[in-house]
């Protein structure tokens, strides 16, 4: 089978082609004239097949190499004579002249025209060459396939492109001149770009074509990406001139002295260069030119721009110029991921504004003492109606101002800084810096909550309340001494709860849960137990009433009792304790009806909870009493008086004195043992305040002195049946005065000391031995959620723990402690 097949195979080369393969020279003759025709665009009557067959035959004659070299030579001659002549002819002397940028205006237009002409010619030559070579390559495909592949030569196309590079672009423009066509091309294109940068229209597609040419040519025949003529020859020059240009541009813009203009111009330039790279030059250059812009135009100037007097970032922040700020931000973000100058400027401004708020609050607080002095001098005109004094107002104003500032910067951050996290942390730091630089921020913040929970949220929808509280919580986040805030909040909360001043329990609970989310469980524990005490007390009151009714005690004058039993450790006892300094105050003597009630309740309570101790806080309570006034004209007038517990005790004293008989201050004090401080205030509200003058004082003066005498005022007048007699100050939450502050601070320090000791012991118990510095850092990190501990204080606490033999020194270098079990 295979044998038969072989016999049938015909010899491949039969007459058809052999008779035509005369010899190399004839073939080449025909081929070379045809190739020239292709170059002169005269190919329409050439037969591709014929040419192809010529080349094919030559290659089959094993003379492909020779053909290759001849074609190369032919191309070289063609380029060297015809094309180069055409191109150089288009170069006029003006293009050769001074390449320096400072050209005279009238020459500019001329240069531009001739430049365009030159570029056009060059482009045409290039495109012709490309097309012709495309055709020639097609014709010589067979040669390419055999010769280039066998001998590792570049294809004829590549070789001819290199020829174009060498004999057209790299040819001398004039016989005597040194510059090459490529140099002229470069300077012309750069000149065009310069024209465009200065705002003139140029022929972009033309330049684009020339750049295509440079991109299509390579330094080497292997055609690596990096050896593109565009990259080796044109781009460096382009980048260099851009650098010079933008350095000057930056300086020029700075001199105009307007930050907004600068940023606008810079952003425009960035967009412009981007567009230029896409439409005129090569996209390859885009990152590089942007680099140049970043470095020369933005990087070296942005700091100055940000700090420009009058128009810099400060001014933008003050005038809410969002768009300009966004520009600044975008520019800064380009050159520096940390945006140092911008953050610094923003931070500086925040702290400045914050300090202003602090100062104005402090100023308001300074102004307060004189005013309050006047107020007391006036005799506490309307103490009940006006519980918010100047200082409290200023505290709340402080919070509002800070919140305003916060919203402002939040808005700026969102709109202009693209919610950048670095900017946010910078803003946060600055906020906490100035908030914490105000030593009273925790107190102010707590007062803000107090005020809002007392009346601010009246008539507001749930979402509004929510937003309000959230705002406050945001500020709480900035406050470092959270324990201080807790103390104040507790104090204010206790007043709200006991005096039933809170508008909505729901809002209170919401507030607590918000704080819990923000600061943690431990923080709100005590606050929550305060709420628990309140509900437990309600039940207790109810069950006590039940008990009384069940006991059937035929009390002639039943007194309704509503009681709050408070866990002393959870409530800010200092707010109500009767202990002042070291001197122990004897408990107040209650009138017998009340005392009876007290005993009865105590009995009831202790029967339920054995082993507890009740201490009565009369200063916190209120009482409703029905008073009968015998007018001098014989009429009888009844009023229901709502007074503080102390005032009730005082008034009941007058039940026991004969009509019209006075009691002196000292007598009252002796019989009631009400502390001086409270007594004075209560007497003031009973005898001095004009609308609630249930007692008459002798002599009539605004201050209460030990020798003063008091008489029940039967001529008391009031348009209302029910009269509420507040106590001069004290009952409302307000900013503390200096002494109170000192006291709070002292208490705070004690409490912090205890927390620190607890933390130290906790850590040491776990670690057994620890180096001093490590212990310090652990303590700091444990406590930082609540407050920023003073390092010295920690040291002192450690010392004291060592003294008390909880810890021991184990080593000296480095200092190490051990836990003593």
């Amino acid at each position, binding site marked *: 089978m295979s044998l038969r*097949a072989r016999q*049938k*195979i*015909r*010899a*491949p*080369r*039969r007459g*058809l*082609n052999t008779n*035509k393969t005369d010899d190399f020279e004839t073939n080449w003759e025909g081929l070379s004239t045809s190739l020239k025709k292709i170059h002169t665009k005269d*190919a*329409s*009557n*050439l*037969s*591709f*097949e*014929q040419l*192809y*067959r010529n080349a*094919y035959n030559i290659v089959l004659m094993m003379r492909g190499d020779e053909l290759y070299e001849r074609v190369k030579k032919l191309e070289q001659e063609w380029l060297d004579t015809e094309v180069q002549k055409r191109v150089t002819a288009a170069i006029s002397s003006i293009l050769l002249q001074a390449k320096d940028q400072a050209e005279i205006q009238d020459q500019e237009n001329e240069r531009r025209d001739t430049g365009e002409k030159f570029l056009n010619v060059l482009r045409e030559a290039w495109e012709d060459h490309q*097309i012709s070579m*495309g*055709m020639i390559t*097609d*014709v010589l*495909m*067979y040669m390419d*396939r055999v010769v280039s592949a066998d001998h590792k030569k570049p294809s004829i196309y590549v070789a001819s492109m290199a020829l174009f590079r060498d004999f057209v672009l790299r040819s001398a423009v004039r016989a005597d001149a040194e510059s090459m066509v490529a140099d002229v091309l470069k300077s012309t294109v750069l000149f065009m770009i310069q024209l465009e940068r200065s705002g003139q229209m140029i022929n972009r597609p033309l330049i684009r074509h020339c750049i295509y040419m440079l991109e299509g040519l390579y330094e080497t025949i292997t055609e690596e990406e990096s050896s593109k003529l565009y990259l080796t020859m044109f781009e460096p020059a382009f980048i260099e001139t851009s650098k010079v240009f933008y350095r000057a541009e930056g300086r020029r813009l700075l001199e105009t002295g307007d930050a907004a203009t600068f940023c606008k111009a810079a952003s425009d330039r960035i967009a412009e260069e981007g567009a230029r790279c896409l439409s005129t030059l090569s996209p390859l250059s885009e990152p590089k030119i942007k680099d140049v812009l970043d470095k020369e135009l933005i990087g070296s100037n942005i700091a100055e721009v940000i700090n420009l007097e009058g128009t810099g970032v400060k001014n933008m922040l003050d005038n809410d110029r969002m768009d300009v700020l966004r520009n600044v931000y975008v520019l800064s973000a380009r050159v520096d991921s940390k945006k140092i100058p911008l953050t610094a400027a923003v931070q500086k401004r925040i702290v400045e504004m914050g300090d202003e708020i602090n100062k104005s609050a402090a100023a308001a607080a300074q102004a307060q003492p004189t005013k309050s002095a006047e107020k007391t001098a006036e005799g506490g005109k309307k103490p009940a109606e006006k519980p918010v004094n100047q200082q409290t107002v200023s505290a709340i104003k402080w919070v509002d101002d800070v919140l305003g500032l916060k919203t402002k910067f939040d808005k700026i951050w969102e709109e202009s800084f693209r919610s950048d996290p670095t900017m946010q942390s910078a803003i946060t730091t600055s906020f906490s810096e100035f908030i914490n630089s105000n030593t009273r921020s925790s107190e102010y913040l707590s007062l803000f909550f107090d005020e809002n929970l007392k009346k601010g949220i009246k008539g507001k929808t749930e979402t509004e309340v929510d937003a309000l509280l959230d705002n406050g919580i945001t500020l709480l986040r900035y406050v470092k001494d959270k324990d201080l805030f807790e103390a104040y909040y507790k104090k204010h909360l206790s007043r709200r709860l006991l005096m039933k001043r809170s508008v909505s329990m729901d809002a209170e609970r919401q507030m607590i849960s918000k704080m819990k989310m923000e600061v943690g469980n431990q923080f709100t524990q005590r606050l929550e137990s305060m709420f628990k005490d309140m509900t437990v007390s309600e039940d207790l009151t109810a069950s006590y009433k039940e008990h009384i009714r069940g006991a059937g005690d035929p009390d002639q004058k039943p007194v309704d009792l509503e009681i709050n039993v408070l866990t002393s450790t959870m409530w800010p006892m200092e707010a109500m304790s009767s202990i002042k300094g070291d001197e122990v105050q004897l408990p107040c003597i209650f009138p017998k009806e009340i005392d009876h009630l007290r005993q009865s309740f105590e009995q009831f309570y202790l029967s339920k909870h054995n082993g507890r101790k009740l201490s009565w806080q009369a200063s916190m309570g209120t009482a409703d009493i029905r008073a009968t006034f015998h007018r001098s004209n014989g009429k009888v007038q009844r009023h229901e008086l709502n007074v503080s517990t102390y005032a009730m005790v005082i008034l009941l004293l007058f039940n026991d004195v004969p009509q019209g008989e006075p009691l002196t201050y000292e007598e009252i004090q002796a019989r009631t043992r009400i502390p001086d401080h409270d007594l004075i205030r209560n007497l003031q509200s009973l005898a001095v305040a004009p609308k609630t003058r249930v007692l008459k004082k002798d002599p009539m003066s605004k201050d209460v002195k030990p020798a003063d005498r008091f008489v029940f005022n039967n001529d008391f007048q009031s348009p209302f049946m029910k009269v509420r007699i507040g106590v001069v100050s004290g009952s409302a939450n307000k900013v503390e005065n200096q002494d109170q502050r000192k006291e709070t601070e002292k208490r705070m320090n004690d409490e912090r000391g205890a927390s620190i000791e607890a933390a130290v012991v906790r850590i040491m118990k776990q670690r057994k031995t620890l180096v001093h510095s490590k212990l310090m850092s652990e303590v700091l990190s444990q406590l930082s959620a609540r407050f920023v501990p003073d390092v010295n204080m920690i040291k002192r606490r450690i010392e004291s723990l060592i003294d008390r033999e909880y810890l021991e020194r184990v080593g000296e270098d480095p200092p190490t402690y051990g836990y003593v079990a």
Partner: protein
Amino acid sequence: MASSATDSEFVTLVSGDGFEFVLPRSAACVSGTIRRMLEPSSKFAEALTGRCILENISGIVLEKVCEYFCYNEKNKNQSNVPDMEIPPELCLELLMAADYLDT
């Protein structure tokens, strides 16, 4: 006429001994040589007329070549295609033609 030839769907292949074969342009362009020959942008005579005279291929071989073009066009992108029948006596000449036509 010229313009209709450049975008006509069919092309004519002419053998050295005068046989003409008309076949779809897409089928003929399987051959690199013919494709270049017909490249409209190059404006060679073949491209303008749509007629390719292949001097050194005989009618018998060209017939087989055209058969292959169509066979290739028909079975493009398919698997399990039946083999094309090639008479052994044409083998060498077909190989030459394939080399020439860059197929």
